[in-house]
């Protein structure tokens, strides 16, 4: 419970970050494909499935992904 509260606190701090706001015309670099959070959807699916079947940890990036008989 303490850990969850700490995590929520970090979220709150992150969302309250008061940095100089970035303007739309300054987002050219951020808009490049190599700066995408997920650069290749099928590759991400493959990787997640592989690690899901070989390791105990999963999650963090989404919800609703079904299970499989591999784990």
């Amino acid at each position, binding site marked *: 419970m303490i850990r969850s509260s700490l995590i929520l606190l970090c979220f709150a701090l992150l969302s309250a970050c008061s940095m100089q706001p970035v303007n739309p015309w300054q987002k050219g670099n*951020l*808009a490049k*494909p190599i*700066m995408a959070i997920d650069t290749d959807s099928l590759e991400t699916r493959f990787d997640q499935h592989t690690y899901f079947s070989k390791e105990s*940890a999963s999650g963090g990036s*989404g919800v*609703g992904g079904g299970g499989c008989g591999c784990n």
Partner: protein
Amino acid sequence: MQLSKKRKLVRKKFKTDRRSGSTLANSLMAAALALPGVAVTPTAKAEAVPEKTTIGFKFLKYAEKQQTGDRMKVDSPSMFFLAPIKDKYSIEGSFVLDSMSGASPSSYNSLSGASGKGIRDYRKAGDLKVTTFFDRAALGVGIAASKEHDYESNAFSLDGRFSTANNNTTFAAGVGYSDDEIGSSNNLTLHENRRTTDGLIGITKVLTPNDLVQSNLTVSIGKGYFSDPYKDFDKRPNSRTAWAWLTRYNHYFAGPGAALHTSYRYFKNDWGIAAHTMEAAWYQPIGTGWTLRPSVRYYTQRAANFYRDPQPPPGPALDFIGASTATHFSADTRLSAFGAVTLGMKVAKEFAHDWTVDLKHEWYQQRSAWRLSGEGSPGVENFTAKWWQIGISKKF
């Protein structure tokens, strides 16, 4: 409208940005891709409908081995599509066919009847998602299914995203539900069930013109059958609650025109497993349309509190380490304490008319000795996997 004004400004910027060779449409698509998503996998999600349709195919070839021999091999052809509908919706989906052959790793099935036994199995899986876009928000509904002869999973998800007026911060929330039916070809009378509810909250923030950070917290609450029907004495608890906290940080280096992606995930479940995952990847554009991406990943986990080391013959049988009397027991080494390293290299080339071809190779190894903390299992064999992936995609 203010938003379209902003877009025009962004377009203007992109039109003059010749160094990257980006077309206007590519840039807008990229802008969409740069923003976060909540889904089975986070992909082209933003508070803007994608401008183009994307279709991609990939083929994955996976092979694993241990000191005592080759294990499972998997061939997986797959496809992906993402398409805008009018200017308010998008639809996306994927389909994969896994064809598995060979033997499962000896330590995973140690001393069980299935150990070393030749396996041939298939898995079909697919997902579909429809997203509705509003001014600064998006709402997605998705379904996913996976089917094997002894396992079937059906999942549903709902997620929403909301951006602040300057589009520098996006909040995300999602829920998912999955219903799994478990059978066994060793025991045809086995019909078990497991239901899992997932939740996610997340935030993505543009920190500077070159820095993007995303942090997500997910929880997964599962109830039902968790044991492995192919392992002797495998008796896992009938519930599992897991938390994962993932933070991703992307930085753009203007000098080499490259992007560094880093991430850290802390994971914990109520079986006693805690895990850390660290990843880094360097995206280096070279020449015209080429991108080179070396990557590295480190993973470490503690053992589940009901995990016991299997003793290979002529060691004592599982019975002698309390397997039959324990309330919960597993000798599945995926529940042991270990560390793992992945090294990867990907090459992608963009051609004219929005065609992209990519090739990736990754090497993965698990070792008991590479764990960060917790008791190791010195008797467990190292496990090595290699996979190759080739893909082609087209936007139009």
